[in-house]
């Protein structure tokens, strides 16, 4: 049996008096990539941020490795979260401190947690982290603006990886990147998973990419999860009408297939989906009234 690394139980987040997400139940297993897919405003980033304690949790639990980490209050608990869960952001231009050099940006985490004995070891760790993402140790003395978008995203990944986290929340890490750079970054993330066995919560709206990197996919609509399934199952047998309309809206990179394709109707209901998640096949859950 796979071991649950992070368990989200009945999570609800309210911001500014509005309920953004509700009734989120989602385990993330060790070594798996779980993707959270939905349209803008569906609340997918809110969930990611709530896990890290960046958004307040109004109801429910977030359990990491047996410890409740929702709304971390004590310093010790905050440090526990920071040590084990790291985040990679969407925009590599705005998520790096423009005034700090790469060496500082990458070693901030290990400095806070005193993960090295002396300056030589710190340098060594930073160099290792840079090399692990395909950059050079001497890049440490440069500043973010001296790098291309793809390289900046790798600096963001190195900053997360140097902490040796067990879970990474990656919030649209490739949407700002070009097609060819995307592949480099995705392959890099997959290599890290193979060698270190860490888990990813991958937040995305591009389903065609998600299919090839996820073990499981959860579809979220207006703050509620409407379907969870293994990646291939979700694509071959989508059961919730919302999932179906998302998949059929996806353009296929093949002119003949694209011409023949019929699109599922777009349900334009503004209502928050209701019902409960029912398991219709092993590991395949659908929201049913």
């Amino acid at each position, binding site marked *: 049996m796979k071991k649950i690394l992070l368990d989200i139980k009945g999570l609800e987040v309210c911001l500014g008096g509005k309920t953004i997400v509700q009734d989120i139940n989602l385990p993330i297993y060790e070594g798996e990539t779980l993707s959270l897919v939905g*349209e*803008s405003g569906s609340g997918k980033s809110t969930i990611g941020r709530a896990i890290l304690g960046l958004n307040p949790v109004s109801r429910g639990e977030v359990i990491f490795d047996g410890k409740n980490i929702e709304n971390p209050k004590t310093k010790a608990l905050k440090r526990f979260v920071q040590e084990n869960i790291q985040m990679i952001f969407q925009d590599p231009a705005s998520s790096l401190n423009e005034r700090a050099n790469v060496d500082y940006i990458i070693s901030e985490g290990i400095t806070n947690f005193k993960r090295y004995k002396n300056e030589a070891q710190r340098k060594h760790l930073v160099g290792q982290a840079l090399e692990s993402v395909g950059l050079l140790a001497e890049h440490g003395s440069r500043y973010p603006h001296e790098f*291309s*978008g793809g390289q900046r995203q790798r600096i963001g990944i190195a900053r997360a990886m140097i902490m040796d986290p067990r879970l990474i929340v990656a919030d649209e890490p490739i949407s700002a990147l*070009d*097609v*060819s750079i*995307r*592949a*480099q970054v*995705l*392959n890099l993330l*997959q290599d890290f998973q193979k060698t270190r066995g860490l888990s990813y919560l991958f937040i995305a*709206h*591009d*389903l*065609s*990419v998600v*299919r*090839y990197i996820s073990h499981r996919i959860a579809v979220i609509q207006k703050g509620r999860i409407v379907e969870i399934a293994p990646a291939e199952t979700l*694509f*071959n047998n989508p059961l919730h009408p919302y999932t179906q*309309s*998302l998949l059929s*809206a*996806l*353009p*296929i*990179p*093949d*002119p*003949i*297939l*694209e011409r023949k*394709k019929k*699109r599922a109707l*777009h349900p334009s209901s503004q209502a928050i989906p209701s019902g409960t998640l029912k398991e219709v096949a092993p590991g395949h859950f659908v929201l049913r009234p």
Partner: protein
Amino acid sequence: MAVILKVEGLEVEFSVRGQRLKAIRKASLDLYEKETLAIVGESGSGKSVLIKSLTGMLEENGEITKGSIKFEGMDLATLKKNSQWQGIRGKKIATVFQDPMTALNPMRRVGSQIEEAIQLHSGESRKSARKKAIELMEKVGIEGAASRFSQYPHEFSGGMRQRIVIAIALACQPKVLLCDEPTTALDVRVQAQILDLISGLQEELGLTVIYITHDLGVVASVADRVAIMYAGQIVEYGGVEDIFYRCAHPYTWALLSSLPQLAFGNEGIYAIGGTPPSLYHDIKGDAFAPRNPYALKIDFEEEPPFFKVGDGHYAKTWLMDPRAPKVKRPKALQNLHGRLKEIYP
């Protein structure tokens, strides 16, 4: 089919901090009446610059240094002043921009922004411009157009805002519509609606459309013809099926190979190594050569000409020269259609 717009040997340069950047390096392009042409390339390939030069919208530090843009008996490349562009930009050639958030004025009601575009070019009375604006809003699929006329952009969703931008672009019944990544900022379901809307309008109004995009799914969905750009040049162009099923340029191969749908098992997604060349310096030979696993010796020395691949299908690569060694398309692309048919039953 008749050529409506003809770009020949176009060169565009920018001065950046005392240096010259060659953004477009001798690009030629025929645009046929009522067709949809997709221009595909990565950021920095010059696709947006090319489009901007068609409406005289280059930034202040940019200029056309060579070549011509023939349109309705004029050479648009020679127009310098804004007053010369008046009858063309917006009126005959209109643009739909990527981000509907920034293309609209947030301080003004959407209706008056459409109205302004109508009045500016046709000199119609306010009243009849208003009537036309409401008709346009209905045409682009905005329900309750009359009542939404006096709302502000923030009261519309992203997709609805893009519909307003399209309405403004259509205000003067242009002949050519330039769409610069019109759906990149939108969700997939909204994207599908906007793509449907544009192709419906194209048929109804007889528009000629240029799409700029890097999404090959969108290309397959909308394009009649495709031009692939790399480092300021068009490197391959042809019918949409030529490009997807019979492409001949190694850069086109690389672009298609990096589709996540073609990732097999543990091999990961195909990644193009290296980075695009700097456009601050003159490029010797084929610009893609340093990243091209199929590069020949001559690629590093001499720029290739266009070779004919098929009817209306040309590729700028030495691999097509009769003297070059026979190189087959990468295996994954030889049966692209079959592979995708498997995934999308």
